[in-house]
């Protein structure tokens, strides 16, 4: 048995997210966003982080509002169903954060390049855009074979990628399913990978279905057991999206004083995810969010 990498979320954040880290998160776009991780980062008052992601839903906005971030390298920062992320907007307009604008494809390419161990990847996207004109990590080049114009996207190697997964063993062999966005690229690109798991299961259960494994366990630095860690975003197989919470957040972040009140009640006011779910969300809503229409796939035969 390889040694256990199981840590509490609080220990994992303490150990793997020092101030100034470049953190990739929210990698499945609208699903499986590691909110519990972000809230723990806020509770531990981490500073000067660089946030890396594709479409980031409100977690980036929360981390920015709490003063944890100094830089954002992302394609979109806001609230997916209501639009503007107010903390992001305030911070970008007052220039208290630096923003490096990407598209979903350029951020994918940047992470894929790092995952491949090369310094950049060519593409056809962003040509003619101000994203290309303005972002110092995207430029143009001539194809060495055809001479045609290409965009070139520099690799991004995060210090740590953080992923909420369905189930993992204690060594970081984890199963994920659903649409993964740029999760795989980010995990392969990052120096360290931190997993938050809905369930901790046996290694035997994981290895019986190796196609579903995110990255090899040796690529993972720590695993924390955090049920409901992605709430209010959805977790395939576990719970649906809590739309109301996203709508409520709009009003709770519009003015800085409302956001401070939200931070106090929903983040600093609770010690961990378990208490957050019981106190801020409640049993009734948790039941309403649970999966009702199950759709279990047939097993597959990996035998020899």
């Amino acid at each position, binding site marked *: 048995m390889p040694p256990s990498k199981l840590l509490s979320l609080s220990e994992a954040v303490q150990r793997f997210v020092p101030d100034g880290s470049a953190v990739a998160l929210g990698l499945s776009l*609208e699903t499986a966003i590691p909110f519990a991780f972000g809230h723990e980062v806020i509770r531990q008052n981490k500073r000067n982080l660089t946030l890396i992601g594709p479409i980031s839903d409100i977690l980036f906005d929360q981390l920015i509002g709490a003063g944890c971030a100094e830089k954002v390298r992302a394609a979109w920062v806001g609230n997916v169903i209501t639009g503007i992320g107010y903390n992001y907007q305030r911070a970008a307009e007052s220039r208290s954060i630096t923003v490096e604008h990407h598209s979903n494809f350029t951020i994918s390419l940047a992470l894929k390049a790092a995952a491949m161990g090369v310094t950049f990847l060519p593409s056809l996207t962003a*040509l*003619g855009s101000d994203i290309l004109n303005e972002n110092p990590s995207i430029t143009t080049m001539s194809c060495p074979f055809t001479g*045609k114009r290409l965009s070139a996207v520099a690799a991004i190697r995060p210090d740590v990628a953080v992923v909420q997964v369905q189930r993992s063993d204690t060594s970081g062999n984890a199963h994920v399913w659903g649409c993964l966005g740029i999760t795989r690229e980010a995990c392969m690109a990052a120096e360290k990978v931190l997993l938050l798991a809905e369930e901790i299961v046996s290694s035997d259960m994981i290895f019986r279905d190796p196609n579903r494994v995110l990255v090899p366990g040796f690529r993972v630095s720590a695993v924390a057991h955090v049920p409901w860690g992605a709430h209010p975003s959805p977790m395939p197989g576990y719970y649906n999206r809590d739309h109301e919470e996203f709508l409520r957040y709009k009003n709770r972040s519009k003015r800085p004083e409302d956001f401070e009140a939200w931070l106090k009640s929903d983040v600093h006011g609770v010690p961990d995810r378990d208490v957050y779910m019981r106190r801020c969300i409640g049993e009734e809503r948790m039941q309403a969010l649970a999966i009702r229409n199950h759709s279990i796939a047939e097993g597959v035969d990996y035998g020899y």
Partner: protein
Amino acid sequence: MAIDVPYTRSQLMVAAAAREIMDHEVIFVGMRLPLLGFLLAKSLHAPNAVGVYELGIVRDSVAPEPILTMGDLPNLYRSAWLADTFDAMCLLQQGLVSASFIGGAQVDRFGNLNTTRTFDAEGRMASLPGSGGACDLACLAQRHIIVMSHERRRFVERVDYITSPGWGEGGTWRNDVGLPRGGPSTVITTLGVLRFDPETREMLLTSIHPGVRLEDVLAQTGWDLSVSPELSETPAPSAEEIALLKRFDPKGYWTGK
């Protein structure tokens, strides 16, 4: 037989968007009105259209329940392919996506879109959420369709930031900067439908929504807008289209206003 049914401006826009989708096309589906437009087309005249979503979903069927975001679990349920954003973007980069739909805070006469930042007359910056996948769609789809509110502050002579390239400065600009294909084909607004002159690539008003006057459209456009000699009226949504939209958006979250 035409039956008059009450409808909202948003429902009319979604119906117009749906008509831009042809059967068997591969459509890159975004959020909000375009998502509903795809579902409408899929249910009516384009049953074999396939939807690609930037999370890495390919869907060949309508989700079993209304969804508010593409990542809602009913949108994953019995999809045709669950993969990665990179895979979805590779389909796009290969030229396999027929059409995509995007919106913006600002659009200019050549269909360039801005969702990054704007400046007011005093030079104050307003920061917006950014590209998401919109830049990629505008660069790489065979054509893209713009859906947005028609207001003078949004329809500007020149966008403050090109998040999603349209026809650039017109003429052969797209080819000159290296874009392999595509360009905006249609702009569906709260007031009318606009297309692009095949030579100059400048926006051209081709239809006006029922009850809208030409002078309203001109007043809400920040440049001297060209009007098609064959200017027509946008067809109102049918009773069947309205009924379907009520199913896909039962609370009127996107189409109520």
